[in-house]
């Protein structure tokens, strides 16, 4: 249910991390509208399928355009939108299953194209919407609906993956810190190229990781999440790789390629350089006349 549409029949569970993510997107977009004097309708948010994807129906306040598509394809749809309309601000919101399992094949090509899209990945280490099956980021040994003996596969390390694929902007955030997350999303949207903000967004129903992320000194649980150190240089890819190789989950801006050039800029530059001539259909036909 949302204020905008009280009859909307999807609800997130109480305490779901996705509440924090939608809040941070609202904050980042409100800030963008104010600072850039850009109407909110210039933003399109393309969602995958999962609890996470329902975000596009649950935003409060002024509404951007939305697209609730099919499982795993938000990034591919967004490529189509952004390449056709470079003037739009294009975001995608995806779950960990959506983005890293069924949709993983799209990350590499998009990284290499460096299309100017921002992906906000809501990682809860579980398939929420389908009721608790293991996802690529579920940890080894965790019992889920589909891993009765405990998960036998190693957990995927998304930040490693993004760095290896050459994603030009990689940030890591927490749903519990919506203001910080909003700042990361703003930076990501302003980065010229493909940006991923990977968010720990716990699932209270099937994989509650709040305590693990935050730690609990009383139980002797050390916090998994730790801020990116102040002296980290996000333009340094090697430093970024070292940072994410350390135990735990760094939170903040991990990597931002300094000389990133987005695909549409490359295209414009090439057209200019090669002086591409546009032939009308009339001309094409004339060339074929017998």
């Amino acid at each position: 249910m949302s204020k905008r549409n009280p009859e909307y029949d999807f609800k997130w569970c109480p305490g779901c991390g996705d509440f924090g993510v939608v809040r941070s997107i609202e904050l980042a977009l409100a800030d963008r509208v104010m600072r850039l004097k850009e109407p909110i309708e210039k933003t399109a948010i393309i969602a995958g399928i999962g609890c996470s994807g329902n975000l596009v129906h649950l935003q409060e306040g002024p509404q951007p355009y939305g697209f609730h598509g099919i499982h795993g394809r938000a990034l591919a749809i967004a490529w189509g939108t952004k390449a056709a309309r470079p003037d739009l601000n294009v975001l995608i919101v995806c779950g960990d299953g959506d983005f890293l399992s069924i949709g993983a094949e799209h990350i590499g090509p998009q990284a290499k194209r460096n299309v100017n899209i921002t992906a906000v990945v809501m990682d809860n280490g579980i398939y929420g919407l389908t009721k608790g099956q293991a996802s690529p980021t579920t940890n080894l040994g965790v019992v889920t609906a589909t891993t009765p003996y405990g998960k036998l596969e190693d957990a995927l390390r998304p930040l490693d993956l993004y760095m290896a694929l050459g994603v030009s902007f990689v940030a890591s955030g927490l749903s519990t810190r919506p203001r910080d997350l909003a700042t990361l999303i703003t930076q990501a949207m302003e980065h010229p190229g493909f940006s991923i903000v990977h968010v720990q967004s716990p699932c209270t129903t099937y994989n509650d990781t709040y305590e693990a992320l935050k730690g609990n000194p009383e139980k002797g649980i050390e916090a998994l999440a730790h801020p990116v150190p102040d002296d980290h240089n996000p333009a340094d890819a090697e430093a970024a790789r070292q940072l994410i190789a350390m135990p735990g989950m760094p939170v903040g801006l991990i990597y931002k390629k300094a000389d990133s050039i987005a695909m549409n800029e490359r295209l414009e530059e090439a057209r200019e350089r090669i002086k591409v001539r546009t032939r009308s259909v009339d001309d094409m036909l004339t060339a074929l006349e017998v």
Partner: protein
Amino acid sequence: MGADLVVRFAGEGGQGQVTAAEGLAQAATRVGYHVQTFATYPSQIEGGPVWAQTRVSTKEILTQGDQLDVLVALNRQAYETHIGDLRDGGILIYNSRDFDTAPLGKVIGLDAEALARETGNPRAANVIMIGAVAQLALMPQQYFVDWIKERFTRGRPSDQEIIDGNVKALQVGIDAATASGYSVDPLDTPPTPEGKRILVQGNAFLSMGAIHAGLDVFYGYPISPATTILVFMEGNLNGPGKFVGQASSEIEAIAAIVGGGYSGRKSMTSTAGPGLSLMGEGIGLAWMAEIPCVIVDVQRGGPATGLPTKTEQSDLLMALNPGHGDMRIPVIAPGSVAECFPAAIHAMNWAERYQGPVILLTEMSIAERNEDVPRPDLDMPIEARVVSDGSMGNRRYAGAGITPFPVPGNPGAYVANGSEHDEQGDTTHQPLVHVEQTERRFSKLKLLEDGAYESDNSAASVVMMPWGGSKGPGRAAYNRLRADGIDIGWNYTMFISPLPAALLEELRTKDLVIVPELNYLGQFSSVLRSLGVKAQSITQYTGLPFKEGYLVEQVLEAIKARSGKLVGA
């Protein structure tokens, strides 16, 4: 004097058969003849059996030709495979270096490779063969010289040398044919053409139609026989606001065109069967979210990888229902190279008009053949999307029929949704909403029922109605049957689904509708039967187009089997 010349060049891949057939076609169009080429080859880069055929005629050409006037056999296997198609009195030109045949009938043995080497251009064996054919048909040499000049002028210093070598090779072929003393029935003088004509390949013509219809963005993944569309777009769809992208898969390509259509732009992809299979879910998304886009499926043979370089019409059922759930995707299937241009425009127009995906269903035999066609009419209406001015707020999916399309960037933000949704695009599973929205989606198809169709001898109770590329052979067979006094009618349309309403009405009154189609199941006739038409297929699944003679036989048999006697005659 004759009206027709059919020449086949057969041999091993890499021997220049396709170039030879195209060269002959190009020169013949310059003389003023109608031409049609056809080529078939295995899915490999070097070697394997390849043959290419050119038909030259003083009249409009409907088929590639059943029988050969001249067979050029470049190796023994080609000779053995194709000699049965040479008509009585036809001429065989063969490569005497590779094999020898008993001298039966009119036979010219040429060691084309040795002769080519003598001209200084060992690669010109195929040009020698063209020279021989040109001489046999008494076609003016100058047109072939012109073709050689055009083909080999590439802006390199060696151009002149290569051209000279090829012109010499042409002469060698001419001399050899002259020495043989044979000739085919020389062709009649071609009629003066009415209006301008072009020589074009199906896929290129289709691409031009789409560009003319205002295509903005194209995303595609290479696959035979659709790759030439992607390549054409990469080279020709440019300028401000235009974008062409090579996708990483067909799944990405379909998603991207849906994203492009959603953004307010006209978008298209092209693929063949295997890619269409992968696109199913994405096409369903476009149907559900009501996003205009066009998917070209250039049919090839068989399921899975099947016959990648052969022709078939076996994707029809899939095109109508390419994904799960209740949907019926509009399908337009051009029946000739000439129809590729208008078909692409119609497909783009339909997508905008009903705000959803349209499949443009073509096939290998049309996609890759060259044909001379009239220069198309550029005044065909181009339809633009009805766009929202924001006054209806976010109620994109309100009511029945289409609603003005909100274009991102403008007021009217809504959520386009592939899940069942209410009028503003929010997900809902309420039974009544699903009923309402399902009916809304299907109701829009009504907007597409006004397509044109052909009808001849409409008083007849038995009609032939081929679809797609079987139109040409079907029409040739129909003409023959009519000339023989058979009382049979003719119907044809490129608008496969929804059928033009008036045509469907007409078909329902018939006792029998005979559908020649290149698939095992008889796909189109099964669709027609589901619509209350008494339809029956003539099928063929060889990977090759129909021959006229076969269709004549089969139609007569179908009529006889039904009524126990021939109609008319």
